[in-house]
């Protein structure tokens, strides 16, 4: 139990990752797929951020009062990744709107059937 608690951040990461990927694969609704994709991407933010945090460490501003700093790099990286994630989600949503206008549905299988005809 303590073993699990000590690495709780990784467990949460893995659960989110699998849940997100499962939603993407299992759901036929295009909006739900995008939700799953969002969760999947969010898990990666956690994967990057948690190793950068040092317990008791402070923000990396050099001062005589502190000698333990957290790593600022993951925040910078994840800020970029969040921007990418937002852009992807926005584009995905825009496509779903257009698909709804063109097909009248956003269910994967119904769209697929209409394309076959």
């Amino acid at each position, binding site marked *: 139990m303590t073993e699990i608690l000590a690495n709780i951040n990784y467990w949460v990461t893995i659960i989110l*990752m699998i849940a997100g*990927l499962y939603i*993407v694969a299992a759901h036929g609704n*295009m909006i739900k*797929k995008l939700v799953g*994709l969002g969760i*999947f*991407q969010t898990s*990666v933010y956690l*994967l*990057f951020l948690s*190793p950068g945090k040092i317990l008791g460490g402070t923000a990396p501003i050099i001062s005589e009062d502190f000698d333990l700093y957290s790593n600022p790099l993951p925040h910078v*990286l994840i800020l*970029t*990744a969040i921007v*990418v994630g937002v*852009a*992807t989600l926005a*584009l*995905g949503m825009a*496509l*779903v709107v*257009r*698909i709804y206008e*063109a*097909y009248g549905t956003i269910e994967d299988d119904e*769209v697929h059937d209409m*394309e076959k005809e």
Partner: protein
Amino acid sequence: MHLPALQVVIPLIAATLCALFRQSFLAWLITLLASWLSFAIAILLLLQVISRGVISYELGGWVAPIGIEYRIDLLNAFVLLIVSGVGAVIAPYARRSISQSLVKSEQSWFYSMYLLVLTGLLGVTITGDAFNIFVFLEISSLASYVMIAMGPDRRGLTAAYQYLIMGTVGATFIVIGIGLLWAMTGTLNLYDLSQKIPLIENSRPVLAALAFLTVGISLKLALFPLHLWLPNAYAYSPGVASAFLAGTATKVAIYLLLRFFFTVFGGVDFFQSTPLPEILFVLSLLAMFACSIVAVFQSNIKRMLAYSSVAQIGFITLGISYATEIGLTGAIAHMFNHAIMKAGLFLLVGAVMFRLGSVKIEDMAGIGRKMPITMAGFVVLGLSLLGAPGTVGFISKWYLALAALQEGQWWAVALIVAASLVTMLYIGRVVEVAYFREPTKNMDQLREAPSSMLIPAFVLVGAAVYFGLDTSLSVGLVQHVASSLINATY
């Protein structure tokens, strides 16, 4: 001096200019200029690398591994040449094709997206920073989803959506891999990683990172069976986008595979200690056959060429799976050749579409008499695709066969030849319909495609023949590239 930065910055600025001016002709002019400039820079960079060795460029003056480094060796200089070369050839073609297939208000957006894809792909190739790879990959991917969604009918939308889902899953897998590597080594610089990973290469996180990266990159390069997004994406996008993506996007993903396998993860020995060569080998063979056979039964010629792309990517990964100098020579040569051939074929099909208004193979009956030049180009590139001597396709397949022989695999040589014969079936089918069938509908109005479309396509047709006869670039340089990759001189 600042050529490496300009390589990426010029198309990036040009893309924003296109979006700002919103004027179709001006946007095309900017696109043409930017893509030709990029090509010129790529040539200069390649010459510099050949004469002086690896170029390291510190972005903003921050020293690597803290700052972001652009690092160019023979391999990525060569890939830069392929990507910007294809971009430069397609740019003049785009004007006529785009002005017909898109409404006026969308045209400048298309050029903007085209340049963003170019920016992203060049960025992925040139950068020496792992996280930078992810960012540029997503720039190019997001822009390509938009290009595909601009396709002629509504199926372009679903193709783009499907590609968006699978492409994002792939990109996220790549970031997970990069994150694990970063957590283990504390660095994102590819060169720095290549120094640190061999010390810990059998630890579980590093192996997990390798697995995530391999799957993520394989999704991007459409390795069988992760290719499901590709046929629709190429079939239902505007002709210019199909040609451009088929010539460049998957090639850049293959570059990433080579870079991670042979540079970052410490070279051939480690690669061969994993099960990867066997997995790649089997999947490549499956791709070569399954997708070639599926291609034979397509009624849409663009979809046929798209399946053929997956099959040809199988040839490339087959060469990688051997991990010998000859195998890699074959793979990298085929990467170059396939970029020329497939971009050329899609351009010619786009020209047919321009006049005929259809991409159904049956509608092309008798078109060989009405559009003789276009179809002649198609036949030459088709011959090259199946590996006829005197064309580039022969050279790369020759090296792939040599690589198989070196391993003593006679049967693999037989399979390479057999897969090429299946290629003959689907190319032959188009040729048969185009030349030997009576036209099914009235074709009196049909004329040859405009020269602004034919000339770019024939530059690629010419290249396919020229580099098949004069092999100093297609083999001579590629051999250097392959040996520098094997000897890990990054």
